[in-house]
């Protein structure tokens, strides 16, 4: 009698149609282990089956791209024989179920993606989103999740020895039951020593290295492809446990093993563990892989082949070595006290063949697993949206109080409480750490540094996924340009709800198309990334949240600070005062925090002007003309001005006359603007003019005061204190 009942198929999250495809590819009924293997490889998480047709629209090439999507991480040429490998990945679902381990293993997973290429990780950034900390019902849980996620990231990154140099932390009700934890990692790699996840060379040994296999994380990839329900809490054993110490040893051992020249191909065991690494390595090389599970180092006794193949135990790698040179690999791993064992060999028939003590357990074509997953062009209608276009009536009674409220709100307040728990200096490359517009790490091997910014904006993307996604790319590129770097590449993490709902699928499609437009325009090809769908709890989806990581290059030098440095300098607004109206004000922090509403459209973006502003600020920074530069984003001009004054030097500002009402003038979030202070306003204007960008002198820096004539006047301390203490007060409320 068949053991594969429709119930068993459903329990593996395969649809009846998908199961029919399994049957026709195999030409027979699968064993339970084979069904498990298909189910993880064809899960949304591993196969991108709902997003693949749309991801193809993203630009992926440029002269600097050495390696685009499809491998473990993308690689960009930075000159002098070196490249940088980087990618972003989500660990949203595990971080809700078990915040500490979920976030920690998120860091571990992306670090392995980087060093499996042969790159040494030199920076991590995190984009994290939670429900509001002050919500009467969910606040306590949200606080617990945030504390757990932050300590998980700190635990893993600090011990591993990679600096966590920046990121973003954002709050919104829609992340209440579905926090987002997106981790970006970047490493340095010699261009002639790039390793691929390919099982090349018939007869070459397949070697398992790193931690032993246990029962943890079985079906993690399938879980990450489901919505959360009340039962999800019972899925806790599906979350893996991380050991950063082991990962550190694995890093050193892998790099040392690669150095021997005996490594042919290597891939980390992440989602779907041994299953994914074997069939993907075979599929990429067009070869087969045969393994015998009796040789797999195991942490517990009595594990079934099903469990061994689907385990997501952390800190493991699979490598293919040159036949006859196995001992060189074993010696390196022994030195670092790690397990290594030959578990199989490369064959010429394209099959994944799994044996247990010689007995055949599974036999599936690698390509069927890795490349033949069903691809869905899911129906998409109009993006989901449930807010009005018209602005409500509103009028501020106290602009200074409004500014203080904004500065102490979750998204805008200081994140020092978070980032001081991260070692952001280890490896002594951090030129600009957390808290600025973009993080900067130098590459010691060359004279080049890398600027990185992570950015997302769920409210903008909810109001208009296409324009919102463009704005997100524009802002991240602006951040990187503001510190003087040329944006050269991107990685994206697409966090959305259930793609089987046409109005959610529409959000995804439009956001991808908007991102594609913007990345093409700003010349930042996407070299890899991650899609996280089914971010819903009890039928409530998150705001559509595409997160972009932009990487830029600049010469290694002391960075331009974002804060005013000296009194008596001219304050200028590059890009001018910007334009807005009430409809385009509905996605701002002002609308969110002070009016607690969302309406209308995100700010209007002129991509040509935006790009010119980037070019202008880069020229201005390179010419050494500014003492500080800070981009305008969340909270608009007034918030940027306050932030620029937090070293104690403020400014008196007289804004040019404008038709904008005061709330809009001070707080609209029109893009393409950068606040600078300078001793050479004429030269700044001249350079800006060359790029067709307005540069308006609006005031002078002064000690200890922030004055916007006709609107508000405050001491720096009045603004700084609430900003600096808000997060900690909210956490310990």
């Amino acid at each position, binding site marked *: 009698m068949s053991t594969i009942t429709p119930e068993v198929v459903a329990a593996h999250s395969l649809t009846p149609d998908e199961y029919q495809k399994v049957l026709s590819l195999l030409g027979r009924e699968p064993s339970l282990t084979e069904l498990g293997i298909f189910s993880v490889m064809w899960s949304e998480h591993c196969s991108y089956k709902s997003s693949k047709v749309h991801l193809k629209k993203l630009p992926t090439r440029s002269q600097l791209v050495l390696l685009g999507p499809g491998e473990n991480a993308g690689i960009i040429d930075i000159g002098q024989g070196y490249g940088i490998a980087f990618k972003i990945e989500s660990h949203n679902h595990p971080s809700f179920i078990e915040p500490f381990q979920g976030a920690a293993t998120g860091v571990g997973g992306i670090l392995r993606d980087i060093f499996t290429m042969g790159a040494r990780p030199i920076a991590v950034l995190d984009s994290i989103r939670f429900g509001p900390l002050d919500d009467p019902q969910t606040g306590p849980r949200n606080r617990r999740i945030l504390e757990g996620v932050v300590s998980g990231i*700190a635990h893993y990154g600090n011990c591993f020895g990679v600096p966590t140099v920046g990121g973003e932390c954002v709050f919104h009700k829609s992340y209440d039951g579905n926090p987002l934890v997106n981790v970006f990692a970047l490493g340095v790699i010699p261009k002639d020593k790039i390793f691929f996840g390919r099982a090349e060379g018939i007869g070459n040994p397949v070697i398992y290295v790193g931690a032993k296999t246990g029962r943890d994380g079985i079906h993690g990839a399938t879980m990450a492809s489901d919505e959360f329900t009340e039962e999800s809490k019972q899925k806790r054993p599906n979350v893996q446990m991380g050991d950063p*110490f*082991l990962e*550190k040893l694995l890093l050193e051992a892998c790099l040392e093993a690669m150095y021997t020249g005996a490594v042919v191909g290597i891939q980390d065991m992440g989602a779907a563990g041994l299953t994914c690494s074997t069939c993907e390595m075979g599929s990429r090389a067009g070869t087969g892989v045969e393994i015998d599970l009796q040789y797999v180092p195991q942490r517990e006794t009595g594990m079934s082949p099903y469990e061994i193949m689907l385990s997501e135990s952390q800190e493991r790698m699979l490598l293919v070595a040159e036949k006859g040179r196995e001992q060189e690999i074993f010696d390196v791993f022994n030195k670092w006290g790690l397990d290594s064992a030959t578990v199989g060999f490369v064959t010429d028939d394209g099959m994944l063949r799994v044996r247990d003590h010689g007995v055949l357990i599974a036999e599936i074509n690698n390509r069927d697993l890795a490349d033949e997953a069903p691809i869905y062009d899911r129906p998409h209608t109009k993006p989901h949206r449930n807010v009005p276009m018209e602005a409500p009536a509103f009028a501020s009674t106290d602009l200074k109080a409004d500014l203080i409220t904004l500065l102490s709100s979750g998204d805008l307040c200081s994140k020092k409480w978070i980032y001081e*728990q991260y070692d952001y*200096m*280890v490896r002594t490359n951090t*030129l600009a750490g957390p808290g600025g517009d973009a993080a900067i790490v130098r590459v010691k091997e060359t004279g080049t540094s890398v600027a990185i910014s992570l950015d997302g904006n769920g409210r903008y993307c909810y109001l208009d996924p296409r324009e919102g996604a463009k704005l997100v790319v524009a802002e991240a590129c602006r951040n990187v340009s503001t510190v003087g770097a040329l944006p050269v590449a991107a990685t994206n993490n697409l966090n959305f709800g259930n793609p089987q709902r046409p109005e959610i699928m529409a959000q995804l499609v439009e956001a991808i198309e908007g991102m594609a437009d913007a990345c093409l325009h700003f010349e930042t090809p996407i070299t890899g990334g991650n899609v996280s769908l089914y971010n819903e709890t009890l039928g409530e989806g998150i705001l559509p949240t595409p997160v972009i990581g932009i990487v830029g290059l600049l010469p290694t030098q002391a960075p331009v600070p974002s804060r005013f440095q000296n009194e008596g300098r001219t304050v200028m607004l590059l890009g001018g005062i910007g334009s807005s109206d009430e409809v385009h004000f509905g996605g701002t922090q002002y609308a969110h925090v002070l009016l607690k509403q969302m309406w209308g459209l995100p700010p209007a973006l002129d991509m040509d002007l935006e790009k010119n502003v980037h070019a202008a600020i880069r020229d201005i920074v390179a010419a050494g003309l500014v003492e500080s530069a800070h981009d305008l984003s969340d909270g608009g001009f007034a918030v940027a001005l306050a932030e620029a004054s937090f070293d104690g030097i403020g400014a008196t500002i007289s804004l040019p006359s404008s038709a904008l009402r005061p709330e809009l003038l001070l707080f609209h979030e029109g893009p393409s603007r950068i606040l600078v202070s300078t001793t050479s306003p004429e030269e700044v204007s001249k350079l800006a003019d060359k790029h067709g960008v307005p540069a308006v002198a609006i005031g002078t820096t002064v000690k200890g005061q922030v004055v916007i004539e006709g609107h508000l006047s405050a001491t720096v301390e009045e603004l700084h204190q609430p900003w600096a203490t808000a997060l900690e007060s909210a956490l310990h409320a």
Partner: protein
Amino acid sequence: MKAGVVVFPGSNCDHDAYYAVTQNVGAQAALLWHQESQIPSDIDAIILPGGFSYGDYLRCGAIAKFSPIIGAVKKFADAGGLVMGFCNGFQILTESGLLPGALIRNNNLKFRCHQVGLRVETTNTPFTNAAEKGQILTIPIAHGEGCYTAEPHVLDQLEAEDRVVFRYVQNPNGSLRDIAGICNASRNVLGMMPHPERATDPLMGSTDGLVVFRSLLSALVAK
């Protein structure tokens, strides 16, 4: 000067110390694997770097003290050799008995990474002879277990013997009597929680850590 930087499994500031010595101090350095049981004869000073030796499992430094190289480091120190432990290196020195006291969890129970003000309490050591007494150095900390603790009579003795080398200007971790760094009775072994190797390059925001290495160089010349 040639500094030997010990590499334990889990050390992660070993490369930083090596880089600081070779690129910013202008001296030589070599990495010493923890399984070695002899210190090469051309090594003039030993650095136990920061990091998470053995993952900080059990207690920070508690497993590293059993590494073969610790015996060699003890011999080196007994013979008057100069030994410095930064952060995890300090923890290893207290665990292996080369320095008194212990480093326990920060009093706020969290890892802390930021610049601190560090007051030089004595210049009568090979690690601070180029500094001025009372000088305030800006050097970063990055640790979760940096709260220095010892019996009151030990603290009294450290003070009486002028062995408190650095104190925090603002105590970041609850260390007793604000102690950030101490030396042994023979004054040739230094342990400190802050990371001087991270403050040797203007691009990193401070070069105040150089004074430790410059002191070391002049002490070696005088030797």
